């Protein structure tokens, strides 16, 4: 296939539809087969981008502005590859998970397929209305996955998530309408020079609305309120997909619009504000994570904190010297990749522990170290990445971010990053300490399948080894 791009969208749509045809709980094998092909396609596309530079694809053969274009540069290539790499072990994990815990499966497989189609379409889109449509599909599938999970708690969380995601896409759509009204086009390629030439007040309002809508979906402090109950209450494979990948999709859009189409509109004040919100997210999310009593809620609050790191990027890339900005951008993308791998591993490991002991209390984890050593090791490795210890991907990310901050003389952010790392170590160690205690009376460990343990371990070891292979990732990111 000359162009893998459209197939990355079509394949998940096809296997998700076939999985739905087969009914509730069916389609796991289809998902594994489909994702294997998608991984090959994403690798193919990444290789094409790395060797020939950014690629565009004209849907329908019309070309922008009449038709819709797809566009894949280095950043899109990294995210497409990351999505398939994280999702493949997760669907293998999910098959084993739902074999033990069939209650929550419902339409997990078709919803996951549509979710992946939406993510791939979003990363590839170069048209702001088309981006809105992919955001809608992504939001609804994510809400469906949370709602399918079970009792009243997850349904309540799903409903709140639905309202937030609709408000977010509504704000984004209002922005799209204003931009279209101003310039008469929705294609990013057409809009970029027009915005550069002249931007009336309406475009500033549009950019603000789109930013706020996307911040809601990314769950940046103070818009994080919906995330912990939704991510913490869903079944473990769903939590992993949502925390590792879905919040990154809206962040990717913010970054892409910030760097390219809306670059003439961005101001240092806005960048500093995003940085301060990121700092607040790191501190608040970490402190809340330390205070949680339930394991999955702790991991969900850790996502709130880790999302904060991504936003430290903006003060470092806006109106700073090019070398510092380049280093910070690399650090931000590495943080995104490392967190996706580590958080997927962590939720998967937590799911295995909960399946085995049937409980979610952190204080009742005694004995996990002897009964589930591999899973606990997985959790610890993922924790290493979150805390940013060498040689993990998280370490490289923080190193590059700190280089960016020192290169642009913004030492305050360095303090935030280092204290955030210490706080992450604190909440990870809290879990580990409990797990090393002896087995409490009344705790029974039921056996779990090896697939559960090894698929999570694979994700965690990738997050660790990412530190050693970071040049490949950064090389792909640089391809323009």
């Amino acid at each position, binding site marked *: 296939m000359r162009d893998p791009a459209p197939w990355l969208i079509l394949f998940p749509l096809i296997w998700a539809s076939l999985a739905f045809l087969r009914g509730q709980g069916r389609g796991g094998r289809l998902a594994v087969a489909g994702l294997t092909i998608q991984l090959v396609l994403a690798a193919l596309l990444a290789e094409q981008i790395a060797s020939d530079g950014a690629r565009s694809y*004209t849907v329908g053969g019309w070309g922008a*502005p009449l038709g819709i274009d797809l566009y894949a540069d280095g950043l899109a290539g990294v995210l497409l590859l990351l999505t398939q790499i994280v999702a493949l072990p997760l669907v293998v994990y999910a098959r084993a998970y739902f074999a033990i815990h069939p209650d929550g499966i419902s339409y997990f497989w078709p919803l996951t397929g549509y979710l992946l189609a939406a993510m791939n379409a979003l990363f590839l889109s170069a048209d702001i209305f088309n981006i809105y449509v*992919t955001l809608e599909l992504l939001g609804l599938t994510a809400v469906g996955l949370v709602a*399918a999970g079970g009792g009243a708690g997850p349904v309540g969380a799903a409903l709140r998530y639905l309202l937030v995601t609709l408000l977010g896409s509504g704000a984004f759509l209002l922005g799209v309408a204003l931009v279209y009204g101003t310039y008469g086009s929705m294609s990013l390629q057409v809009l970029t020079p027009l915005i550069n030439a002249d931007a009336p007040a309406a475009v500033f309002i549009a950019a603000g609305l789109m930013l706020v809508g996307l911040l809601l979906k990314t769950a940046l402090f103070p818009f994080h309120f919906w995330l912990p109950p939704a991510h913490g209450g869903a079944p473990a494979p769903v939590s992993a997909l949502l925390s590792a990948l879905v919040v990154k999709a809206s962040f990717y859009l913010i970054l892409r619009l910030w760097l390219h189409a809306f670059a003439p509109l961005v101001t240092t004040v806005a960048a500093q504000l995003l940085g301060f919100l990121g700092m607040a997210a790191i501190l608040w999310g970490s402190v809340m994570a330390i205070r949680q009593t339930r394991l999955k809620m702790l991991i969900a609050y850790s996502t709130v904190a880790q999302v904060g790191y991504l936003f430290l990027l903006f003060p470092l890339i806006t109106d700073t010297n090019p070398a510092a900005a380049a280093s910070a951008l690399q650090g931000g993308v590495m943080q995104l990749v490392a967190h996706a791998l580590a958080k997927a591993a962590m939720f998967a490991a937590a799911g295995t522990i909960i399946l085995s002991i049937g409980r979610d209390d952190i204080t009742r984890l005694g004995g996990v170290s002897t009964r589930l050593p591999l899973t606990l090791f997985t959790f610890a490795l993922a924790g290493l990445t979150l805390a940013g210890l060498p040689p993990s991907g998280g370490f490289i990310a923080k190193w590059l971010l700190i280089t960016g901050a020192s290169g642009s003389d913004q030492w305050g952010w360095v303090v935030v990053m280092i204290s955030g790392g210490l706080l992450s170590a604190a909440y990870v160690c809290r879990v580990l300490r409990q797990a090393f205690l002896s087995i409490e009376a009344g705790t029974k460990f039921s056996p779990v399948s090896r697939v559960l343990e090894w698929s999570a371990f694979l994700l965690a070891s990738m997050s660790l080894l990412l530190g050693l292979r970071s040049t490949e990732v950064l090389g792909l990111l640089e391809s323009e």
Partner: protein
Amino acid sequence: MKGVLDLLVIVLCLVLGAALWWAMLDLPSSRIHLAEQVAAKLDASGVTHPVTAVLLNFRGYDTLIEVMVLFVALIGMLTQAEKGSQWLSAGYRPPPLPAPPFHLEVLQWLARVLVPLMILTAGYLLWAGAHRAGGAFQAAALLAGAGVLLNLAGLLPAWTTFRAGMRAGSITGLLFFVLAAAATAAAPHGHLLQYPAGWAGMLILLIETGLTLSLGLILAGFFLLLSAEASDGSDTEE
């Protein structure tokens, strides 16, 4: 506290509204006129109505994802509706409809007359979409409306689940659209949803026919699945 929050929301909305109003007042006229481009390429689109040309050809890819959004909304409802697992057991049949009270008899008579006409009109709207306002979405809305009317008149029981036939019906039209898109992308020198020359009109009609049937079921499902929950609630109260 709640009063302060409400006030804050109201003030924020007013500020946003005022800002939008002020920004719209001096909106420059855009230099790109998509309507002209649509008109210029209309002959190549396979249909003569510009809206259909945009929805199914120029921006057909948006429509492909948009119908998936509707479908995912249906799956979301099914995950809730099918939670009571009694409906999934093979032997379960919905209870027979009770004899209608007198006031429903008129409605039933009316529904029996109207529904065939609604189906006929849906077929016409689908066909008309090629050259005037109409098309798959409108036709599907009418089909779903017919389903709602039958349910309200007590002629069609509420849906509690989607069995294999219903699942097939609700996805086939969408899947056909996806497969048609895949075929165009796989064609030599073809692009995603680039209809081969001369085939555009026929393919659009086929895709719209499939979409009408599937979207009709999906939209009807939105009402009929909720209607099952409503009648469930009243049962427990009695």
